[in-house]
């Protein structure tokens, strides 16, 4: 069945986010930490793009650069066709209505001194929307939408459980009816039984409001469950990008295979010997030359990748992989 080509909402082209590593007495920049090093992705309207990788791979930095909490070092960020890479913070304000963020730890991302009403009214106040009475009504509607009682409005974040707090975080993110929400590990801090409630809520809201998500997480099973397409990130670069089912059934990059292989399967009848991945993610400060994953695997063909221009190639419709001699057959 031919799929309708949806309009691309967010376009990220060759985005780089480098940080100086300072040291010495004069605190000069001695080295560069290449947290995100040339990432190109796009998110269409109503789509969820999953972003998965180990800690330190740069997925959170990429998310923050997209909402412009960081000023990207290089590359291009386009939202609805408009270049927002270097737009000033003031000019960003109207755009921020359309791009929101949900954070991992709702206990830390909600101001403990504000009531839930204050927290949920803040987006409207910043955007100068509505009268006092209208805002009051909107807060009620938001709470209803995320499955909290209207009495929650006058309580403080600490009075809620983790799952309820994340609902408040979600309510704040959808307050201004955004088009895109960057979700950074939204359920990692939650218990299993509550995690599924929050995931269901996010799916419902997406259907109702036509939201797009950039869903960042380290758990491949959660990411696969939530996403239309999944991008696998390793050491600041995307190594594979494909529709969820395709990525799961037909992974091509050795890193994707290793990630899939490492997921503990909740079924004791499927216990199997694992091909264990050795070592850790290398530091983005002094990344190995050539293919970073081949280097970690000590692959015999790794040396061939040194000096190669490793780029994502489309090997079948919609399935992109970073081709290198060591990681892709």
């Amino acid at each position, binding site marked *: 069945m031919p799929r309708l080509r949806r309009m691309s909402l967010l376009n990220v082209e060759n985005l780089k986010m480098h940080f100086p590593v300072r040291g010495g007495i004069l605190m000069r920049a001695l080295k560069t930490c290449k947290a995100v090093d040339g990432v190109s992705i796009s998110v269409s309207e109503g789509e*969820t793009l999953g972003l998965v990788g*180990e*800690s330190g791979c740069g997925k959170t930095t990429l998310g923050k650069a997209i909402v412009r909490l960081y000023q990207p070092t290089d590359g291009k960020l386009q939202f609805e066709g408009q270049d927002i890479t270097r737009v000033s913070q003031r000019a960003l304000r109207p755009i921020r209505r359309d791009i929101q963020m949900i954070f991992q730890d709702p206990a830390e991302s909600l101001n403990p001194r504000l009531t839930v009403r204050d927290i949920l009214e803040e987006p409207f106040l910043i955007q100068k929307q509505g009268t006092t009475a209208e805002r009051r009504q909107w807060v009620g509607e938001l709470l209803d939408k995320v499955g909290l009682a209207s009495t929650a409005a006058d309580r403080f974040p600490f009075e809620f*459980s*983790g*799952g*309820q707090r994340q609902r408040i975080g979600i309510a704040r993110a959808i307050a201004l009816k955004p088009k895109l929400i960057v979700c950074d590990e939204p359920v990692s801090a939650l*218990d*299993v*039984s*509550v*995690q*599924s*409630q929050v*995931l*269901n809520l996010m*799916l419902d809201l997406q259907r109702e409001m036509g939201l797009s998500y950039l869903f960042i997480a*380290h*758990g*491949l*099973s*959660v990411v*696969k*469950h*939530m*996403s*239309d397409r999944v991008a696998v990130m390793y050491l600041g670069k995307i190594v594979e990008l494909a529709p*969820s*089912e395709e990525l*799961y059934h037909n992974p091509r990059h050795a890193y994707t295979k*290793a*990630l*899939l*292989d*490492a*997921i*503990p*399967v*909740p*079924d*004791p*009848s*499927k*216990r199997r010997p*694992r091909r*264990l*991945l*050795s070592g*850790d*993610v290398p530091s983005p400060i002094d990344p190995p030359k050539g293919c970073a994953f081949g280097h970690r695997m000590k692959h015999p063909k790794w040396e061939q990748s040194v000096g190669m221009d490793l780029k994502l190639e489309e090997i079948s419709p919609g399935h992109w992989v970073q081709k290198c001699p060591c990681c892709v057959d």
Partner: protein
Amino acid sequence: MSAAENILEVKDLVTVFDTDAGRVTAVDGVRFEVKRGKTLGLVGESGCGKSVTAFSINRLLPQPHGKIAGGSISFEGRNLAGLSVEELRQFRGREISMIFQEPMTALNPVQTVGKQLAEAILLHQKCSSREILQRSVELLTKVRIPSPEVRLQEYPHQLSGGMRQRVMIAMALVHKPKLLIADEPTTALDVTVQAQILDLINSLQTEMGMSVLLITHDLGVIAETCDEVVVMYAGRVVERAPVAEIFSSPRHAYTQGLLQSIPKIESVPKSRLKAIPGSVPAIETLLPGCRFAERSGRPHLPEHLNQRPPFIEISPQHWVEQCPVCVA
């Protein structure tokens, strides 16, 4: 069935904490046994009492607030609750060792790995410094840390999360304990590193004939590593069975809900998950009867809420807290 087969027997354990708001019961009549050379998984959500159970066994409850108010913990036939401080010191590390969730907070940040390992070795042994060095290198090699001589000179912050957890394991295994209690040993780690650490624990267990009590909230980890599973909810054991049985025929509504709520890698993307409504009840509001009643979505009668359901062996080796509503 004898004590010889079980290395650890926990019977009707009750652990309480005295707080400003009064006494709360964190563990309320928990019973299970760890078999020699086997792995028992203790699974449950945060606040269900699984870590407090582990701390009770190793007598690491925060003092003076926490205490064991009832039941018994016997290790190879000896009652642990009766040990003096000095006896405990002899006991820990040799008989039972423990590893924790966050190795960064469990290791001393201002001492080198070598110094901390030496401390663990000298706890129960007199050694020359040459012997200590030799043993330390041996231990780090055993937990598969590359270039151990270099690592001994380093501080915890110089190691990655996985390496730190390996150092923790090395320290726990210095005196070849008979039982290793692992409290969420891989929760803070990436999946790839988690797989390495679980594999390591597994092979060391076989090599040393050790028993393991593995505490986790991750059913995937349970499925891959345990022989038997204890499911805890709100301070009590709701179900206990061999691992294959828990996953193939869970009997309690909570276990069933838990198993259904995890997104599985083979599930259809963007389909709705089966969720357990509500959240874990607060410890002060717990009822004497079935504690899962409120979230089960099944109507409970007052008698189910006010009377503690019996914990019975529903089929061989399969125990369940038999609330007539939650266990259909």
